[in-house]
């Protein structure tokens, strides 16, 4: 049963990912991205990483994507969409070529190989939210705090850049 689900989630993720970068209408792109995120969350569930799966849905699908859509709606889509994805053909070809190569390499490497310590049982043990919470506030406290500073910087940065320039600023050069 698991392999079937895996195949489903993985294939849909790939298709949705390709659609995200190749569709012409930004809103459609957003929806494709939503599908992608949902199916990746499914992969996480298969791995018994429920916490990550839920976080994926709540944060990416729930918050970030909605914000994207808000912004897209506020822009004038009628004129935007005409040129939004124009010259992607060769760029996507490049990415495609890379993907094929990666796949070749990964398949040829006999993926089964040596297995890491991360068995299903182990993931179940360290993947639940209690375990993650404890780790995050003990061993991984430092990265956690750095993320805090990082988010502060992001918020302030967004405000600074979006703040309407004062008249004094606007009188400067427009090169």
């Amino acid at each position, binding site marked *: 049963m698991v392999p079937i689900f895996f195949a489903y989630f993985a294939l849909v993720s790939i298709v949705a990912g390709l659609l995200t970068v190749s569709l012409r209408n930004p809103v459609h792109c957003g929806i494709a991205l939503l599908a992608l995120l949902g199916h990746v969350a499914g992969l996480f569930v298969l791995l018994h990483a429920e916490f990550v799966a839920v976080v994926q849905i709540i944060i990416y699908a729930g918050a970030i994507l909605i914000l994207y859509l808000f912004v897209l709606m*506020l822009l*004038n889509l009628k004129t*935007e969409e005409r040129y939004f994805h124009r010259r992607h053909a060769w760029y996507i070809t*490049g990415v495609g070529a*890379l993907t094929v*190569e990666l796949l070749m390499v990964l398949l040829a490497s006999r993926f089964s190989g040596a297995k890491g310590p991360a068995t299903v049982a182990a993931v179940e043990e360290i993947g639940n939210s209690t375990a993650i919470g404890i780790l995050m506030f003990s061993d991984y406290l430092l990265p956690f705090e750095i993320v805090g500073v990082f988010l502060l910087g992001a918020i302030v940065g967004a405000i600074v850049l*979006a703040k309407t320039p004062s008249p004094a600023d606007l009188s400067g050069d427009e090169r």
Partner: protein
Amino acid sequence: MFDLIVTLIPVFPLLAVLANGLNVMLGHRYSHEIAHRLAWGSVLLSFLCSVWVLGQTLGHPEPRTVVAYRWFFGADLTVNLSFLIDPLTCIMLLVVTGVGFLIHVYSVGYMHGEEGFTRFFAYMNLFMVSMLLLVMGSNYVVLFIGWEGVGLCSYLLIGYYYDRVSAAKAATKAFVVNRIGDAGFLLAIFLVFANFGTLEYTEIFARAGQLDSAAAFSIAICLLIGAVGKSAQLPLHTWLPDAMEGPTPVSALIHAATMVTAGVYMVVRNHAIYDLAPDALLIVGVVGGVTALFAATIGLVQTDIKRVLAYSTVSQLGFMFLACGVGAYVAAIFHLVTHAFFKALLFLSAGSVIHALSGEQDIRRMGGLWSKIPKTHGVFLVGTAAIAGFPFLSGWWSKDEILGHAFVHGHYVLWALGATAAFCTAFYMSRLLYVTFYGESRVAHEVEHHIHESPNVMVYPLLVLAFLSVVGGLIGVIPGGLENGWFHQFLQPVVRSAGAGGEAAHEEGHLLVYILMAVTTLIGVAGWFTAHYFYKLKPEQPDLLMNRMKGAYTLILNKYWVDEAYDKAFVEPGKAVGRSFDKADTAGIDRVVVAVEQVTDLSAAGSTWVEKHVIYGGLNVTGYANHLAARVLRRLQSGLVHHYAAILVAGLVVLVNLIVLFLWLGGAS
């Protein structure tokens, strides 16, 4: 005491640089009088110290090392700012400080009233410091610092007349060509370090024997590239004639007497390595011989007084390389010394001519000057005789010695090249003399009545140099006789390991040597007589000949089109490659960008409408968000970003390919 005085030699000019440099930067706190006194005074002090050091060295010729300070040292590398005092250094010190001093004094008169007088002397003294480091350094790094330093000063001084576009171009050319040579030199330093683990001369030359011949050859060739760049030998000779854009004292000091001979000095200094690589040594000789003739032929038809002398310098440097190439290191240094005397003399008297003619340099607009500036004429005559190889003058001794060595050691082709070059030298120098000083005056009228002899401050150095040009060769004869004079006895310990090569010439029997001397003397006379015939007896002949041999004449007049060939072969393709890379890097999709810009403008209008009607009417938060997004997106859509990201991915693909092809498949097989 000894250490202190040795250290002081470069310190004196350095102090003068600091004083004069600060004076320039702080807005001329003191007069030109003080500036030039500081400048030549410091060089005079260095000269006196050098004489003292020579006195100390006469007693014990074994090299002594003086450490000024420990410069940098790592785990396995120690480099000190230290000086090596041996006979070779002493000779170079005397030439550099002695001739340098005379040229400084001369410059006081020549540069009088020029804008940037103090700056000029600051550069000149900086040059002295670098040149002294170059000849005194006891390891390759100090040599290299001096090497780069002299190049730098040469650059600054060639570009001294900044109002001439050609001067700036010539300066850049000189620097870049020199840098190509320097790259070779730097590699040689690294190779030396890789082979010996040290950069000190004494240790390296003591252990030179352990070098295998391939390593010796590659080091020798890399060193040669450096020497060829600095000494303007083929194929890196093109910068020196252009360097004549600088003031004449600079041409005399840097581009004739001292800096350009640094390559010869370096080859002689490294003779222990060259002796291990006979093939490389042969290449040195061939480069020298071919350059000597090549430059001499160009000198035949040049019409700018300084350019004739410039090609003559290239040619004479070729003689010195030829001497090194046949193993006659002492002869090379001997010629270096005499050449410093007579070439400085020629340049300075040419400067005196130019000074008298208010800046005229074209010999076709000179003539008949001998009676108007008699002193200059006199010293120029002496210089011409010395370089052309008039018997018993300095150039005669040294040039004969080089040609003698070439012949005796069986390098008959090199001898023939040198002899032909000597003929050309005698011819073009006599031609220069005739066209400039004799015959009808062709001087422009407005210049004519300004003609005046130079002030004494310029004439006295000329007289001293003229004296040296006459008697300077005697140090190679007295007291031991031909090729066994004081000079040779003094330098012999330095090149002792050269073994038989250094001394074979006179052992072959004096008869052959005398015959060779007679032959070269005759060649010199023939050169003079040809010029006499063309420019005195049959003044119409040159034009006739010119017409008859139009092709050859044009070829030579255009310096064999080497400059143009380099432009076509290197400079233009280089720039083209740069431009095309640049295009690929930035503007390759210009057209697309323009198209996208137009669309962007439309969208900007659109988003402005949104801003007006939606945002400012709506929530501030969404307003911010939209504003940010609009501004950012506007630029995103320029297409460039996608383009860049694509290149990044392309790079990744290349890397993945490298991994797959070489590492993984290679490792698996």
